[in-house]
């Protein structure tokens, strides 16, 4: 049983290793710490978003609002740091509070009004993008010595790679998510609801609290991703990160999490993010391929992994059928 649920994770891992080895064989420079460090830094905000998306998708839901939440966070931080003199850390806490509360509100609507997550988070996406526009339609630069200090924090590895704070934050998020998902009751409840909401309720899983918690986690992590994004770009722009929700969903699926919910791992998502980052790095290295190939290759990968999941599902049911048939005969 555990063999078949972990198999997609191993395949994602193997795909990443194989792709990396192939890339490194063609361009030896890709194996340098510089490229690896950039892989982490460039994908930090997407990686953090994808963790929240993993929670949501494990529970059988979907969150389309994350891209807008990231943009809103960026604009909010930029405007509040420009207009007031509060410390960025206070602003961080404030924005995390807002985005977590926003996610929780969406979770509440989904649970109490029995509306599909798809439509509720779609409205949330419009709302957050709209609020970002209201705050500012222009790109607002962030200049604060605390930001400069945060951006100057890095560990220089041999070979010239700079492992920055944001990359470390992403890794930390993944470790924390793993602990929450596999070692706490909340994490088990997420899997239970994704497996079957009805069964979970009959078994005494607090559905309301868990659903609200899941979307709060997703909203909060999108807020954190927004903070990381401002550290990455030093600006807040309301048109930024359009379509990031799709990239996050794609990374989760490539990572082997079932979109029907109930089965998957955060670690898979991590390698999904790395695979997507690797594709982009390869296109940069190649120089002749155009950027639209990224979309086509990611679409192809999505398709391959969905078919793989289907194939594994069929194989499992076929084996169960075979087993029950032989049981009946004996």
């Amino acid at each position, binding site marked *: 049983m555990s063999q078949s649920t972990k198999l997609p994770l191993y395949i994602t891992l193997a795909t990443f290793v194989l792709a990396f080895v192939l890339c490194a064989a063609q361009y030896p420079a890709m194996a340098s710490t510089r490229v690896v460090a950039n892989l982490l830094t460039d994908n930090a905000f997407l990686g953090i978003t994808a963790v929240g998306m993993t929670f949501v998708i494990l529970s059988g839901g979907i969150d389309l609002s994350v891209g807008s939440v990231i943009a809103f966070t960026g604009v909010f931080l930029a405007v509040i740091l420009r207009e007031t003199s509060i410390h960025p850390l206070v602003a961080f806490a404030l924005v995390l509070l807002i985005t977590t509360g926003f996610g929780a509100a969406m979770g509440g609507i989904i649970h109490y*009004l*029995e509306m599909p997550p798809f439509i509720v988070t779609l409205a949330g996406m419009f709302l957050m993008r709209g609020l970002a526009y209201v705050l500012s339609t222009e790109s607002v630069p962030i200049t604060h010595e605390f930001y400069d200090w945060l951006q100057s924090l890095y560990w220089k590895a041999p070979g010239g790679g700079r492992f920055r704070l944001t990359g470390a934050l992403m890794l930390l998020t993944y470790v924390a998510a793993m602990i929450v998902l596999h070692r706490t009751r909340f994490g088990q409840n997420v899997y239970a609801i994704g497996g079957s909401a009805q069964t979970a309720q009959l078994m005494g899983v607090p559905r309301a609290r868990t659903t609200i918690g899941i979307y709060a986690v997703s909203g909060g992590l999108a807020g954190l991703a927004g903070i990381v994004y401002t550290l990455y770009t030093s600006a807040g722009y309301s048109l930024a990160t359009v379509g990031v929700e799709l990239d996050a969903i794609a990374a989760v699926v490539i990572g082997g999490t079932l979109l029907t919910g109930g089965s998957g791992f955060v670690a898979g998502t991590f390698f999904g993010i790395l695979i997507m980052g690797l594709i982009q790095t390869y296109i940069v290295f190649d120089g002749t391929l*155009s950027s*639209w190939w990224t979309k086509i290759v990611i679409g192809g990968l*999505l398709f391959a992994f969905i078919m793989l999941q*289907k194939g594994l599902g069929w194989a499992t049911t076929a084996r169960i059928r075979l087993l029950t048939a032989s049981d009946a005969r004996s």
Partner: protein
Amino acid sequence: MMKSTLKRVMPQIIILALVLAANVLVFPGFFNIEFQHGRLFGNLIDVLNRGAPTALLATGMTLVIATRGIDLSVGAVMAIAGAVAASAVVGGAHWTLAVLMALAAGAACGLWNGLLVAIFRIQPIVATLVLMVAGRGIAQLLTEGAILTFNDPGLIRLGAGTIAAVPTPIWIWIAVACAVGLVIRRSALGLLIEAVGINQTSSRLAGINARVLLIAVYLVSGLCAALAGVIVAADIKGADANNAGLWMELDAILAVVIGGNSLLGGRFSITASLLGALIIQGVNSLILLSGMPVEFNLVIKALIIIAILVIQSPRVRHSLYLLRASTGPVLRERPKPAPRTPQEEGQS
């Protein structure tokens, strides 16, 4: 039949009337229609004209959602169709051939989605996500990343021209909706689609070929999207692979949901979805005419959507039903245990 249809779409008609009335409030000349240079001009015509792509997409999307599916790829299919038509015209093809090629591309996309859903039994939201992500890349591949402009009068007329003084897009979406509606409702097809949406297994046991129906439904959605893509490309005289049809899938799904069709499949009404599309366009026009800063556009739209969704949510409907049952005259029949879809009452 007629009376029940009217009863079914009553909430949408009321909302549309309210939105239009609000339009008149902020802009008294809203209903004025003038005849100039052989073409009708007026805000009302504009709403009908600008609503064409959403209305076309909503027609196909209604059928897909009725089978308990969803088609996320329509925006990307629009971009592909626009790119195909533009590159064909630029390459010297006649505009009718270009439109046919765009439709063929849309049909191919629909067929791909349908095969994934019906044969490989992949969840519709995932199956169409593949094309949503990859489709825009394919469209960019066709236009080589640039905005492909063209100057073919025949093709441009589809988006910006008129027939009998009425803009062509209006004719197109009304014709397509009528054709689809007639085929669906004058035959058993509509009933069969609803059966597949309510319970696919039992419909199959009852002898319905669910697979063929599912593929056909995604095919129709692909064709509608291709037509919408051609209109949008013709309107701006160019194929913009990046922005054509961007977020249109969300507008289309919203139109269907505002039309009171359940995302859980089953009973559907194309008329109601079209009214939903007009409501969305009416709200857009309201925001424009009221002279509010455009920054507020999305916030207001989101709040209106949330209000409409809350009114239509099963839980709120059930409480309203209970409230009416407890205060009104004693009901003979027992209240339903749990209303599953909002539109189960009404519409035959």
